């Protein structure tokens, strides 16, 4: 054990002494601690586990029996000879790995006299981007570990880029294993110079370099005698003094996202939420968005009594002097500096799901307490996280990061992510699997989103429908290739025509050769294909027509998207249910044969999924019903219900 080890031990004993001698003084001191979240970036080789183990060990009391176990394990399986292997404190994870528990983000805790620390530890390599972005999303600070013998590596760049992307303001560049380069200042200076050049390149404005040895304990809890040439703080000292995000946010204008409206009785109406930024006092003028109405804060209500002031980071309940509409998803903001409201944005998206992004598909977005439906355009580009190169991309796969335009189905209240994480950071949720598929950051709203206004028209859709004396419909046939969709749809249209109804049939022949001739058969193209057909069908329904569509339309999400575009009851989904074997047997166009031979890729039912409808208005079993019979009951459904509603 060297000299720095002794200093560490003293720190522990000092804490112990205060607990034993004056527990009240100890509690009083700990009561005023602040809290810092940070993330450590680096692989096992960089000594990350050793550093975290060291921080935990140095700052907390360790039970005698556990220390004995650690010492025994260190000798048995450790990599440090007779010395304690701190990595074992953290890498007990090996056992979990054997148990098959996914190692992604683990949160660990330690405390010093001044602060409580929450460390997000992301050991995984394969899912590194997803895990690191998740761990970094709540972090005030990131420690980028560099092995002094290796210098800046690809992963150093990757970690730095991700930390910067997620908006971490405080970066510590810890040059580790200084003991293995004889505490050589020139080695350290060269690494820091290289890093500074790289940092400037990617827009990192500031970072704090520290030479350390996690193993030997240099510059961790106290300044090391081995690096007299270093005049900055020890790591823990720096961690104890950095300003936390929540405190910095107090200086910004007030924003509170409303989570819950508190109405115990008719006389009390409070708006509960966590203050994202700024401060609030009774008497402050506030603006409620999206309505834009202003009011005055009457009380800040808590169980401990009303407050004179509340600040960013606090969860409070506000009452307002004037009764105005305000509900979950709204934002209470400083009246003179409200956030913006828009529905189209440029954003950075980090894809986190095994199933790739499908541009045009509709996903749920949660941003603050707002929950809306969104569609995402094809990315403008994808970023190679290893060298920050921008690559052309049509989609994003797991761990892909790209910049794309995003449109919400109604205007949302937002701020650029770099100004406010609460109103600029969002997650995307798949509407069918309910999985969190992506995280994203809004940068700015697109100007057109504020300039497009719906043109009021005098001849509206009701007028169109009335003139045609029919209820507009979109009759959506879905089913496998060769299931009989087009055959049945054709018969339906003939009957409608005979009944004097105004209709139009959209099918592969008239759509794929024109409107959608630029689209292929990848999942992404299939989504876009259906989206366009949906939009066209909707316009035709607006014009009063009964629209019949005959497309495989294999995905529930797109069928649901079209359904959601139309008034309730106007969308009729008809599942033409023909078993794959039967459809393949018929194989009218010889397509199955080609697909089986591998000549056709992405063929539904063969190497691309068909998602069976769950809530179709009608199911036609073609093994039990002729096309004629099917057409008859469908026409009854379309026209029959109209006669009742007129």
């Amino acid at each position, binding site marked *: 054990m060297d000299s720095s080890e002794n200093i560490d031990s003293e720190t522990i004993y000092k804490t112990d002494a205060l607990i034993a001698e004056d527990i009240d003084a100890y509690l009083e001191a700990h009561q005023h601690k602040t809290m810092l979240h940070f993330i450590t970036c680096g692989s096992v080789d960089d000594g990350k586990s050793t550093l975290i183990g060291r921080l935990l060990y140095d700052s907390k009391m360790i039970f005698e029996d556990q220390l004995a176990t650690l010492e025994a394990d260190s000798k048995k399986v450790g990599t440090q000879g007779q010395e304690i292997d701190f990595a074992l404190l953290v890498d007990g994870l090996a056992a979990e790995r054997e148990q098959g528990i996914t190692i992604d*983000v683990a949160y660990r805790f330690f405390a010093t006299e001044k602060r409580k620390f929450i460390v997000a530890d992301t050991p995984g390599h394969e899912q590194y981007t997803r895990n690191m972005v998740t761990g970094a999303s709540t972090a005030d600070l990131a420690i980028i570990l560099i092995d002094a013998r290796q210098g800046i590596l690809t992963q150093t760049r990757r970690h730095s880029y991700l930390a910067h992307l997620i908006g971490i303001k405080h970066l510590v560049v810890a040059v580790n294993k200084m003991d293995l380069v004889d505490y050589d200042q020139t080695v350290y200076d060269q690494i820091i110079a290289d890093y500074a050049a790289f940092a400037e390149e990617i827009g990192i404005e500031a970072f704090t370099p520290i030479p350390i040895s996690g193993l030997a304990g240099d510059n961790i809890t106290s300044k090391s005698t081995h690096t007299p040439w270093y005049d900055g703080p020890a790591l823990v000292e720096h961690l104890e003094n950095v300003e936390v995000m929540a405190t910095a946010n107090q200086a910004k204008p007030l924003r509170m996202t409303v989570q819950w409206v508190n109405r*115990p009785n008719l006389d009390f109406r409070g708006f509960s939420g966590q203050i994202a930024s700024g401060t609030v006092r009774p008497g402050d003028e506030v603006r409620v968005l999206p309505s834009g109405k202003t009011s005055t804060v009457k009380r800040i209500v808590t169980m401990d009594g009303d407050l004179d002031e509340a600040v960013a980071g606090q969860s409070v309940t506000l009452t307002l002097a004037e009764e105005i509409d305000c509900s979950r998803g709204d934002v209470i903001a400083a009246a003179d500096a409200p956030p913006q409201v828009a529905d189209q944005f440029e954003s950075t998206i980090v894809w986190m799901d095994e199933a790739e992004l499908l541009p045009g598909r509709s996903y749920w977005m949660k941003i603050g307490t707002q929950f809306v439906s969104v569609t995402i355009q094809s990315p403008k580009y994808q970023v190679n996280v290893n060298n920050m190169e921008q690559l052309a991309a049509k989609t994003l796969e797991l761990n892909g990061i790209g910049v794309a335009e995003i449109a919400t189905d109604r205007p949302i209240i937002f701020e650029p992510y770099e100004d406010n994480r609460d109103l600029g950071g969002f997650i995307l949720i798949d509407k069918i699997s309910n999985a969190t598929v992506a995280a994203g950051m809004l940068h700015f709203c697109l100007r057109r989103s504020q300039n497009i206004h719906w043109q009021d028209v005098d001849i509206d859709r009701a007028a169109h429908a009335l003139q045609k004396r029919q209820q507009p419909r979109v009759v959506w046939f879905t089913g496998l290739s060769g299931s009989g969709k087009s055959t049945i749809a054709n018969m339906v249209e003939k009957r409608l025509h005979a009944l004097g109804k105004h209709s139009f049939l959209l099918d592969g022949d008239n759509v794929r050769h024109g409107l959608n001739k630029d689209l292929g058969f990848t999942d992404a193209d299939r989504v876009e294909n259906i989206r366009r057909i949906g939009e066209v069908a909707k316009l035709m329904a607006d014009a009063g027509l009964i629209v019949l569509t005959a497309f495989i339309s294999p995905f529930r999400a797109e069928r649901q998207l079209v359904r959601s575009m139309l008034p309730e009851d106007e969308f009729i989904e008809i599942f033409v249910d023909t078993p794959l074997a039967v459809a393949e047997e018929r194989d009218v166009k010889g397509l199955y044969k080609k697909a089986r031979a591998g000549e056709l890729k992405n063929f539904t039912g063969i190497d691309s999924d068909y998602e069976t409808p769950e809530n179709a208005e009608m199911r036609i079993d073609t093994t039990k019903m002729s096309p004629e019979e099917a057409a008859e009951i469908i026409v009854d459904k379309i026209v029959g219900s109209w006669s009742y509603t007129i």
Partner: protein
Amino acid sequence: MQHSATATPLTHLQRLESEAIHIMREVAAEAENPVMLYSVGKDSAVMLHVAKKAFFPSPPPFPLLHVDTTWKFQEMYRMREKAAKDAGMELLIHQNPEAKERGINPFDHGAVHTDMWKTQGLKQALDHYGFDAAFGGARRDEEKSRAKERIFSFRSANHRWDPKNQRPELWKLYNTQKAKGESIRVFPLSNWTELDIWQYIHLENIDIVPLYFSAPRPTVERDGMLLMVDDERFRFEEGEEPVERSIRFRTLGCYPLTGAVESEATTLPQIIQEMLLTTTSERQGRAIDHDQAASMEKKKQEGYF
């Protein structure tokens, strides 16, 4: 947790409290039928206290659920009734009818006792009431595998947890979307440590079961553990006589399974002092602890944080 002066940072306890309140309000707003699991222990006491603050002046908009084994300490039952009444919340008590019928008890049935009363009992209760979100008081510092469980943890319709398929949890955006029959366990105290819990109880003056404080109590020493003779159902082995000792409990479960420690700590600071200065981990009182909820409270069992 009043915050007074301007531009001063919030303390760690203020931030932990604020985070827990935020989590509880998200659940109240987005879940259809939430419930708070209440085990009467110190973590439950903190969770309930934060819930009262989160919704004040309304009572918390969900009931408390105690999955009872009928073998808890009598003082726990008294605390349970009082806590629910003070909070103005409905208290639901579930006792597994099958375990009751078969007379499952900790003296004769060992691990089956815990499984039937607690594990099966909990599933029965959640199914019976159709709860789609259940708050629990578990913390990430309790054991290493907990360190990576999400705050919002999903359960299939069969109450299974799939650790390989956890949703990424970013910022403070919690995805509560789920299919019918699925449910969420929510852990608002995930980021608290045991010291945070005690310190908060101290600062907020939260009522906890008196068994946490030292007092003379009738005990029996068995297999290196101090058991308390809590009621007439206690089975003495040959030669055993109750002996009065000054004891307290670090964790509370079924009384015949929970070991006490000899202690003179009668105030919260003394308890915290004892906890911080203890040089052996808690396994001393846990030799035959099969109680699942109590294991949850086991701290530093494998690691040391």
